[in-house]
């Protein structure tokens, strides 16, 4: 088993070009009670045309990660350290003015709540046209045509009429489609979707996920999907990052995460959700306790306090990443070669078949 000390993701193993590389990112919020370390050294990479998922509970730092990439962190928050390499340029160094050219144009974002992220006093069409005209040299007429085209692409019925309607005339699922149309209107190379389906019903969620999968295949957009729903990432993403306490706990392909999880937190998450295909309902195994307070983050592993297999070292020293294969890494002392084998609890996850 090989293991390295650094946080730098191992992009050099892949031939396909990295579109985004985040290295040792740290973002903190300087509140009146002290520094809240929301992200404490996060590193990952994203290839062209790839969809990755970031999962974690509230407060794990998944949304702050995406906001940092977009540089939308507002006072009192600040990116303290790290690099965000997007197309060979470091976004951390960019000014807000330079970022405005990137946002909406090269990196687009879909937010959780479509009800609050659309402006109620402008028509859907106007809002899409604004984005297009901001970034592309197009006449109003051309932009309008493009807006209708985008609405057609995301499956809004009679788009030539809908384009002149206001957000309140759209249902929740349609608003989210309109948001996606807006995000995709400048053909971004990276799409960040922050809980895009959390506010929607399952049937509408299925529509939106289907749409995102098609878009990925059709226009080769890279996608970062942020969610707390493990089922959603299993459907769309090929690689999954599990976050907890401002750190990446585990990263692997989705098959590995679901069928061969290595980190006790990932195992715990998988065990605490009911399995729909099992005949009789078994008792759920919850993760006891609550997430750590990031105002005073624990010295060792952030999960140590809730982990049933924690050892003395877990509370004292933050574990490095242990690689079980090229694409699978986990931050856990149990993977150290001297660690005791916890075979009873290591089963976890979901058995295949």
């Amino acid at each position: 088993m090989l293991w390295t000390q650094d946080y730098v993701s191992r992009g050099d193993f892949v031939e396909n070009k990295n579109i985004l590389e985040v290295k040792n990112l740290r973002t903190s919020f300087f509140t009146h009670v002290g520094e809240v370390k929301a992200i404490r050294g996060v590193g990952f990479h994203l290839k062209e045309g790839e969809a990755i998922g970031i999962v974690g509970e509230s407060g794990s730092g998944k949304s702050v990660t995406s906001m940092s990439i977009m540089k939308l962190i507002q006072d009192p928050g600040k990116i303290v350290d790290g690099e965000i390499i997007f197309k060979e340029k470091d976004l951390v160094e960019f000014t807000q003015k330079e970022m405005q050219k990137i946002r909406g144009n090269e990196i687009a974002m879909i937010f959780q709540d479509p009800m609050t992220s659309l402006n109620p006093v402008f028509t859907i069409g106007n809002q899409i046209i604004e984005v297009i005209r901001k970034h592309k040299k197009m006449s109003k007429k051309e932009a309008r045509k493009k807006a209708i085209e985008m609405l057609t692409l995301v499956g809004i019925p009679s788009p030539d009429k809908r384009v002149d309607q206001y957000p309140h005339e759209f249902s929740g699922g349609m608003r989210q489609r309109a948001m996606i149309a807006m995000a995709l209107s400048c053909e971004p190379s990276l799409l960040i979707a922050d809980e895009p389906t959390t506010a929607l019903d399952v049937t509408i969620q299925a529509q939106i996920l289907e749409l995102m999968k098609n878009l990925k295949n059709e226009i080769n957009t890279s996608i970062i999907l942020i969610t707390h729903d493990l089922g959603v990432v299993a459907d769309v993403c090929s690689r999954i990052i599990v976050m907890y306490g401002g750190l990446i706990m585990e990263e692997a392909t989705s098959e590995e995460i679901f069928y061969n999880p290595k980190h006790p937190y990932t195992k715990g998450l998988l065990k605490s959700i009911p399995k729909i295909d099992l005949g009789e309902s078994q008792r759920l195994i919850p993760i006891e306790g609550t997430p750590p307070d990031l105002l005073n983050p624990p010295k060792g592993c952030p999960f140590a306090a809730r982990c049933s297999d924690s050892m003395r070292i877990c509370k004292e020293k933050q574990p490095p990443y242990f690689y079980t294969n090229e694409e699978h890494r986990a931050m856990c002392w149990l993977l150290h070669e001297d660690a005791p084998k916890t075979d009873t609890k290591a089963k976890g996850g979901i058995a295949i078949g």
Partner: protein
Amino acid sequence: MDKQKEVLMKVNHLKKYFEIKKGFIRSKIDYVKAVDDISFDIYKGETLGLVGESGCGKSTTGRTIIRLYKPTSGEIIYDGVDLSHKNEKEILPYRKKIQMIFQDPYASLNSRMTIGDIIGEPMDIHNIATGKERLEIIHNLLSKVGLSSGHAIRYPHEFSGGQRQRIGIARALAVNPEFIICDEPISALDVSIQAQVVNMLSDLQKELGLTYLFIAHDLSMVRHISDRVGVMYLGKIVEIGKCDDVYNHPSHPYTKALLSAIPIPEPIVMKEKKRIILEGDVPSPMNPPSGCRFRTRCRYATKKCIEIEPKMREVEKGHFSACHLL
């Protein structure tokens, strides 16, 4: 559940319409048919799950049978007594027997009251205990839901979402209810905390012999906790039956689509899974479609579905479904 099916609550043709006033003098009245003619039984000691998309009327059903809303018509028979036309005073003793746990643990606790007072308030209203005895009950309840007695003097903002939901449960238990309506009790909580609360609910059910009406949109959680499940669409129950029957062989096209839409946290299963993607959105409950309400999104819809509203029929023992195609 087959031992002795004693009906605890019988809901007959329950309707709840909300009035909408329109126009300049706000006179023109329209109705939102939130719950439109539903009937079901809840047996003693069981958990009945109620699922459906937002706006289908599942929460209104819960709130109407606990009489937070006055039903437009229909009967709510609890233990042989019709609650639907009782006034506030007459309903009070039943409020003690039927309690509710709310969705949002942040909004359902008064932020200016201590936890002890929040849990004690229902006991004051129903004159259950005072003084030392009251305090003792509060401490007992807190330990029952996994909190310590020291928490009684603290305020809601000092607790996390999962802990607040436990406080909400303790408050519901304070009057020794027989029947608890859980209105999306876990949807505001994180995955790892959801399991804690669900386990606690099922432990309490075993210990105290409670009956639950479990309202949720999380289909896999409903399957986990419920004995029977009812599927609602636009104010109607379209299918109801034992959990295993409904989930393993759903008969209504809507239930089939709903179940196929659940994302399962297993990549291999997801790749092979054939999804029924429903087109469009749920129609407005203000003027629902004629005939079968699901026909606008149903791919099997025929002329009959437009004209005649399907009746509930038994597809197998204890499993009912409202569809012409069966």
